[in-house]
């Protein structure tokens, strides 16, 4: 399969009772790349992720992963193909320890009848321990995920997405609720993922976005407004008018 077309959205439209949250959007994400999606509130960024991951079904258009149409697959099957997503509000498994959260994410064999056996657990544990270091939660290893701080939950959820070893990671506002120091730590974590994974990050914070050094895509009213490097986007007057200008 050609590198250039790991994930393709083809003229995707998502219609919520007449309101087009995504409007005829086409987008390509190459493997191993870093894409940053920005856009004002309600631009459709989260809905785009929802569509890729199967939480929302497109009204029109296709989502292709390595050339296969995935827009009708069940959610867990899409994940099985190699796409994993972090939600805007962290959704860690609060009743389990940090390491168990990661180990469950890291399990390769997710068929239920295998869950009575220990098969594959060692490998998953090893992966979980490695990711634990990677996201800087080593000292919280055995804490209950429900007792983590907000920032720690964000990192744990990034860790869970990474632990699945999916080819494409979708990170929806990974720095929500974080201070500047935590944000740049997060940016550092995310930068280490590129190459092994393709990463798509949604965020509002321009400082954070600039640290990611990715290809920037601007969404506006459910459609693609611009794409390019951050500098190109920054110089764009139309973007400034709808988004950056207001943020400054």
């Amino acid at each position: 399969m050609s590198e250039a077309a790991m994930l393709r959205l083809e003229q995707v439209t998502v219609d919520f009772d007449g309101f087009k949250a995504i409007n005829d959007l086409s987008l390509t994400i190459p493997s191993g790349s870093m894409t940053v999606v920005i856009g004002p509130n309600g631009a459709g960024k989260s809905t785009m992720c929802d569509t890729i991951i199967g939480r929302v079904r497109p009204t029109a258009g296709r989502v292709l992963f390595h050339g296969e149409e995935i827009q009708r697959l069940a959610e867990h099957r899409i994940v099985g193909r190699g796409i994993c997503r972090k939600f805007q509000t962290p959704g860690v498994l609060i009743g389990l320890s940090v390491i168990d959260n990661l180990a469950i994410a890291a399990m390769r064999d997710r068929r239920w009848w295998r869950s009575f056996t220990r098969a594959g657990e060692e490998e998953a544990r090893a992966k979980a321990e490695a990711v634990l270091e990677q996201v800087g939660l080593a000292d919280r290893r055995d804490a209950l995920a429900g007792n983590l701080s907000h920032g720690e939950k964000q990192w744990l959820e990034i860790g869970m997405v990474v632990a699945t070893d999916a080819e494409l990671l979708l990170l929806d506002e990974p720095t929500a609720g974080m201070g500047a120091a935590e944000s740049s730590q997060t940016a550092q974590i995310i930068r280490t993922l590129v190459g092994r994974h393709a990463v798509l990050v949604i965020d509002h914070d321009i400082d954070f976005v600039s640290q990611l050094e990715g290809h920037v895509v601007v969404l506006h009213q459910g459609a693609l407004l611009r794409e390019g490097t951050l500098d190109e986007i920054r110089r764009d007057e139309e973007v400034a008018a709808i988004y950056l200008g207001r943020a400054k």
Partner: protein
Amino acid sequence: MLNLPFKTIGGGAALLLAILAPWLLSAYDLNLLGRFLALSLSAMGLVLLWGEGGILSLGQGVFFGLGGYLLAMHLKLDGLGAGELPDFMTWSGVTALPWWWAPFRNPLVTILGVLLVPAAIGAGFSWLMFRRRIGGVYFALITQALALVFATLLISQQGTTGGFNGLTDYHNLMGLNLNDEGVTRGIYWLTLALVATAYFALRWLLSSRFGKLLRASRDGSNRLRFLGYDPTPYKVVAFSVAAVLTGVSGAMFTLHAGVVSPALVGVVPSIEMVIWVAIGGRTYLVGGIVGALLVNFAKDKISTALPELWLYALGLLFILAVTAFPRGIVGEFEGERRFKPARLGDMFARWRAGRATS
């Protein structure tokens, strides 16, 4: 704070006392203990289903009834000659044994029935529900409706189910006299052995990856889905296992009580089961046992002394358990750091802190 050796010693002592109970208790109290131990099987099923799986069922009485009635059908047929009918059928003018009674003449079929009928119905029903992502309050209400329908059906079929009075007045099981002291003790020990087996089997189940995934599906079915798991089978297995335990619970209770009737399977008894577990500690298997025993002994004492008071006492206990002690009696004694539900957790934490410093 409890540590492991203490728990092991305490648990061992309790088990030893339970084994020796036939020599320590009066026949009346032994019978009560046997009944309530049988009920604790249902309670442990709810710990798995509700405490660990987050699935509230208000219809466990259905499975309890299936187990109880299937066994009672065998007991009614035991000792009857070919062509003879159970007494209540004759009184109702039924002239031939219904086809669905006939297989339960055989004790082996009966045992299999007690296990497999709840398993099959539980699996089929819960698969239909969970596949459609029905959960929470809707699921609880549907199960409650099921309990109502089941009890109503039993009452309406006087001729084949014994109607309102249910099935009672049987004395023999596989050639044994159920009123014989040795036999009642044997049945008591059998119940105890089943409770112990269920306890250890569930402990194993909950410590496996299955248990973690079940807990994960409680905390976030969607999160699990987006990690690539289908949460449905975990919930279906939990529901089916609970159904089997509840069926066995009903069968054993019927043996001890000498009767099974619609009053034991409808909406109220189904809700009572949930209350035992809430009071004992819904995320602890021991909590299920403790809750079933304590609440039912209290019920026996209070309702003989002041019958009209019992329902209020039960309601009060339940409210107390849900508001002030969401982790139940066993949770209160448990030193483990557990995630406290945020709702009333703060009030609870303050109360605990105050108690710790005083």
